[in-house]
């Protein structure tokens, strides 16, 4: 009897064990909870539209449109108008016009730009677009082309030597990757295309986007915002008639208006009437790096980019764009700032210098293209190519539109080239245009020729290491 009991007890123990052995294998199948499998991601219309929103989120990253594109331009172009006061090595290198191939800013830019390009490429596949409702196809396709064309343009003018109108432009731009990577075997080395090819691709993408998209498309890419980027691209190429045409299309559409004052064009929680395209930020967005570097207010910004008095002296005393608020106090936030420049009061770092109010809060929208820029493009393009008077205004009238809004005395006689260029400087300063303008105008930058090799970015070291087909920019190939 005792023996039987023992055996019985043994089975009590062993049975669940055996049962478990049989059922365990399926327990190794664990599905992710807060991510989805890629197979699912591109098979429904909703998911594809969500992936399109994801592309804008990628575009807004600090490494590209969110901040670095702006900083590269303003740091390289800085001479005596702005001083870099911070301790970070990366921006200091651009400020000194001596970047290194391992600069982490540059690496991040490269990675984030191609993340965006890959997302656009993924969305542009026919089989993906086919999943969408008829009415959505053109919109998704147009938006993906809009972002791809724009990023190719911005990247080309940062990594390639300047576009020379009328020349073959065989200097290397960036690698044009136009097909998506969905498996690792697609991740192959690619060579750099020429600057000409890059500009052509950007132009094609943006033109197609302009034609596919509706005039206005909420806060997303639209036909008019594609035109605005095209205007910028044609201006950079020195193609004045087309630059003026695209700019005029935007201005004359009547969908935008200049904000009441220059200050009202910035730090808005929603797009202002002047915003043709702006990065959307709200309290749930990540901390905006642009504000970290430019701002110096309570809890916002290091104030590393300090604007110099000599620059403010360029403004007419009545010009709102050059007004300096000197009575700032501890605890001030952007809501307490009423003028375009203020004496920094930051809690993060505070040098007590002059800071621009354009980027004063982490969680406010970042205008990337404002209507003011369109007036300036049209004025300059019509001026440089007097034959084609595109739009109802003369260059002088266009410039005066900007000046009147800024309470600057308007020009009575015809504007000169210098006045147009100066106006662009005063209106668009700290918005990421200066370096490209100086290059366009073939002006020296801090003692370097406009096409000097150290005024373009290096191909990042990490990328050179994994891609044998890449050619480094000459100024950087001497040392690593």
């Amino acid at each position: 009897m005792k023996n039987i009991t023992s055996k019985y007890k043994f089975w009590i123990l062993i049975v669940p064990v055996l049962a478990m052995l049989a059922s365990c294998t399926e327990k190794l199948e664990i599905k992710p909870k807060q991510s989805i499998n890629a197979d699912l991601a591109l098979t429904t219309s909703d998911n594809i539209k969500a992936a399109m929103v994801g592309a804008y989120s990628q575009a807004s990253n600090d490494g590209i449109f969110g901040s670095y594109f702006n900083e590269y331009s303003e740091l390289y172009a800085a001479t005596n108008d702005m001083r870099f006061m911070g301790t970070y090595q990366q921006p200091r290198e651009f400020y000194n016009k001596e970047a290194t191939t391992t600069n982490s800013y540059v690496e991040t830019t490269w990675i984030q730009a191609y993340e965006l390009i890959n997302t656009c490429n993924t969305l542009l596949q026919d089989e993906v677009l086919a999943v969408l409702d008829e009415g959505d196809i053109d919109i998704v396709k147009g938006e993906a082309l809009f972002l791809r064309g724009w990023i190719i343009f911005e990247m080309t003018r940062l990594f390639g030597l300047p576009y020379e109108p009328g020349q073959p432009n065989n200097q290397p731009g960036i690698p044009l990757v136009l097909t998506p990577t969905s498996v690792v075997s697609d991740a192959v080395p690619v060579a750099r295309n020429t600057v000409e090819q890059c500009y052509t691709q950007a132009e094609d993408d943006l033109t197609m986007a302009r034609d596919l998209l509706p005039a206005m498309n909420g806060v997303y890419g639209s036909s008019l915002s594609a035109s605005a980027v095209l205007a910028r691209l044609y201006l950079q190429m020195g193609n004045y008639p087309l630059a003026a045409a695209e700019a005029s299309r935007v201005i004359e559409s009547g969908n935008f208006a200049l904000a009441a004052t220059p200050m009202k064009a910035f730090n808005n929680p929603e797009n202002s009437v002047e915003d043709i395209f702006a990065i959307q930020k709200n309290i749930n967005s990540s901390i905006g790096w642009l504000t970290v570097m430019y701002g110096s207010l309570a809890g916002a910004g290091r104030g590393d980019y300090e604007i110099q008095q000599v620059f403010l002296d360029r403004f007419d005393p009545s010009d709102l764009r050059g007004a300096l608020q000197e009575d700032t106090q501890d605890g001030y936030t952007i809501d307490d700032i009423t003028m375009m420049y203020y004496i920094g009061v930051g809690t993060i770092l505070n040098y007590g210098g002059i800071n621009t109010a354009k980027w004063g809060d982490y969680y406010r929208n970042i205008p990337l293209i404002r209507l003011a820029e369109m007036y300036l493009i049209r004025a300059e393009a019509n001026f440089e190519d007097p034959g084609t008077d595109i739009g109802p205004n003369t260059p002088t009238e266009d410039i005066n539109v900007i000046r009147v809004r800024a309470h600057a005395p308007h020009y009575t006689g015809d504007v000169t080239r210098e006045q147009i260029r100066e106006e662009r400087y005063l209106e668009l300063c700290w918005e990421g245009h200066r370096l490209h303008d100086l290059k366009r105008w073939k002006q020296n930058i801090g003692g370097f020729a406009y096409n000097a090799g150290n005024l373009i970015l290096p191909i990042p070291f990490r990328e050179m290491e994994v891609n044998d087909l890449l050619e480094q920019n000459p100024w950087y190939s001497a040392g690593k």
Partner: protein
Amino acid sequence: MRKLLLTSLIICTLALSAFGQQKTVTGTVTDISDGLPVIGATVLVQGTSIGTATDLNGKYSIQAEPGSTLVFRFVGMKSQSIVVGDRSVVDVTLELDDVGLDEVIVVGYGSAIKRELTGAITKVETKGIAEIPVASFESAIQGKTSGVFIEQASGKLGETVKMRIRGSSSVSANNQPLYVVDGVPITAENLSNSGNQPTSPLADLAMTDVESIQILKDASAAAIYGSRASNGVVIIQTKRGKAGATKFDVQYTTGISEPSRLVEWLNADQYLELFNESMENVSVDGLVWEWLPKEDIWEMYVGSTWDDGYDTDWQKEAFQKGSLNRINVSGSGGTEKTRYYAGLSYDDTKGILRGNNMNKMSARLNLDQQATEKFSFGMQMNVIRTEMERVQNDNAFATPLQLVAQSPLTPVYDPETGELNTETIYYNSLISLRDETNNQTSFRSLANIYAAYTIVKDLTFKSEFGSDIYDLRERNFWGRKTITGGPAGEAQNRSVRVVNYNWENYLTYIKTLGVHHLNLVGGMSYQQSNSIGSDIFGKGFPTDDFTNIDNAAEVTTYGGWEEATSYLSYFARANYKINEKYFFTLSGRVDGSSRFGVDNRFGFFPAGSAGWIISQEDFMAEVKDVLSYLKVRASYGVTGNSGIPDFAHLALYSSVNYAGRTGIESIQLPSSELGWENTAQLDLGVDFGFFNNRITGEFDWYQKRTSDLLLYRTLPATSGHEGIWNNVGELENRGIEFALHSNNLSGKFIWTTDFNMAFNKNTIIDINGPEITPNGINYVIEGQPIGVFKIVKYAGVDPDNGDALYYISSDSDETTNNYNLAEKQIVGSPNPDFTGGFNNYFEYAGLDLNVLISFVYGNEIYNGAGVYQSANGDWFDNQTADQMNRWQNVGDITDVPQARLGYGNGTKESSRYLSDGSYVRFRNVNLGYTLPKSLTSRMKMSSVRVYLGVQNLYTLTNYKGWDPEVNWVGAGRSTQNNNIIQGYDFYTAPQARTYTLGINLSF
């Protein structure tokens, strides 16, 4: 309890009545093996200083009381204690002491006798570790085991401790060993937020509960743990009760601590001198940078107090007087059938850094019950609460040690308001220490229940269910005046819960037939670990008096996640022993994990080993007097590594938030063939004992080759992806280990010495792609050890003009002052050539002294903050005192370039900031006194010991920073970054020097 008191009283009375009745006791001491007299053996009356030695005939004579105990000792023999009683002749036979050789060692799924081991397993001496004033048990065993390199990240409390058993066996996957506590692989990885340094869940374990720690180093020992054993296994057993009267132990330790080393910084005069010169060197016509006069620059950057005569020692402000209070109480005992151990532990430590505190409470109950002759069961239950007040990441302005960057010319307090000065060159992190809370609290329950049943004679079935439930809460608040919390305060609530359970079922069969002895183990285990977490940030508080997230005006960031891993395994092992001389082990484990694709889900991990005790052979009899013990061992096997993120094999999209809409984005390419990382290890070892095992030791040579590396392979970013997890590449660790134990003296005066040393050479053989670097300093390069330093090599200063010079390339002596023209080259390695420890223990008349020294040799350290701290006055950060040796005049020979404010002369990353990281450290010195028995018994105690200790008494090193034991891995880290970034210092706090005073009472 009353009974206990009564018994104590009776014993006490008896003891007292016996006191003073001295008599002469005589006898002979002989050797049990041959019956010959033992000459010179020590005979002591326990608890007194009365003692004698045996003569040439092994005879002795001593005065003793009937109640006293005689202790007989001789080198290489086991000591014996005999109560005199009414005898006047006490003859004693002593037997050979195979020091440690008959020790029971816990191996996976069973235990073994040390002499029978065929694999490389080290049992760590745990005696006294509860007296060591460190937060985590790994720190307490630093330097005690050969081949185990333990390094603390910093002097902050409760942070992850790096443990490398026989080197790093992976590039991208986990390199920490598997920790098994009472049979359960516990949650050991950091779960704190990635914005701060990692913390260690291992710090939760109360050291007083630890009975034994064994480290499985080779494949034969570890393969039974299969897929997670490549980095070795650390098996921890907690204390169990023994049959007998209840024994109480009370331990109280108190102590104070201070930084073990400080760095010398410029004082106000030096600072003024250096920076005035630095400005003059970049001035034209009296204008710094052709811009402003010096006074204006001083005013602008250093602030209005620059010429007010302040001389602030900011380093002092970062530290506080640390303290430690620890109390452990335990009771254990039982009957033949029921045994128990109950322990309670409380530890309150105030760190050396301002604002850094830790408080631990732990309660444990271990119960074992022999229900019937055949059936037993038991339970171990441990509930722990650990609370930490943390300071910010080393790379944050708000961390205390970044205060050293402040100018000595600025005061700590604003002279007008008396408040903390806000006009400092960098954010004054004392504001954070005043207006922030960084609180982390974890609750943990480690519970383990088992049942064992003897089915038939020799065959036992055991089922064991263990769980580790870990709940972590972080509650942070940053006031409105802090760098993080402006303009209106910010708070974070973060919680993580990990439920990790493990079920094991196995059969053990033990059979002896004549000279043949067989031990078979076979079974299965299933483990699952689910982790769930959430994280919320809120901004905008009415005032700083409101600190709860509920008071926030807006929620800024929020997140939640759920992850899980599971393992299903089958294992078997056979131990076969012949004639107590020849030993063989074969083992194998099949492991399946959810972390891999269906195709490569299961892995097989076999191992085999053999041992031969040569000294048991007849032909060794002649040399037995000298070589008393000799064993050779050999093992070979394969172990695995699966320490990568969950779901690395899947193509994934995750969600993002943009413009109030939720989008999705691709985050990972598929890697469907992803499988185990395999490490094949060969180990050859010799164990030996000389002169009756007066000196014993072991020596091991090993080669560990890891193939199919789980590598996060870099992809061309033009693909839109940065990398992918693949099984590619190979690396190798090769080394020797050596451990020696010597009983130098025994008798009245006892002196033992332990010495261990290990050499490991790590080589990356193949990574099938470009060099990998997370920080541009530490690299993974084929043919080099992991984490090797590759940076521009500094060539000193041009005596003609004070320019910093760099070597153009590794194969040229040519130098340049243009940093961009200098190629990066390999300039050092963070991996030491050898590491080890040297321990000496002395005992005399109740006094004992233990001195533990550990050493590390041949590694380099890169000071990432050097570009700010030692930059010849390039920027206004206060400089290390050695920067006063800057170049000033033509012909000056120095390695500190000319001071040029803002010009970056020599301040780019280079080997200028690399230095030798070797050190010898007096890790622990502990002096104790055990009160004489006669006295303690009058106090109704069985033992009373008081002790004085010093941790990190002195460190001998050439390193110029705070502490050569340093490893800052930074925020936003990944496992791969942790593996590669080694020997990196960034305002990292030194270890504490702690002075302790304690008492142990047993009754």
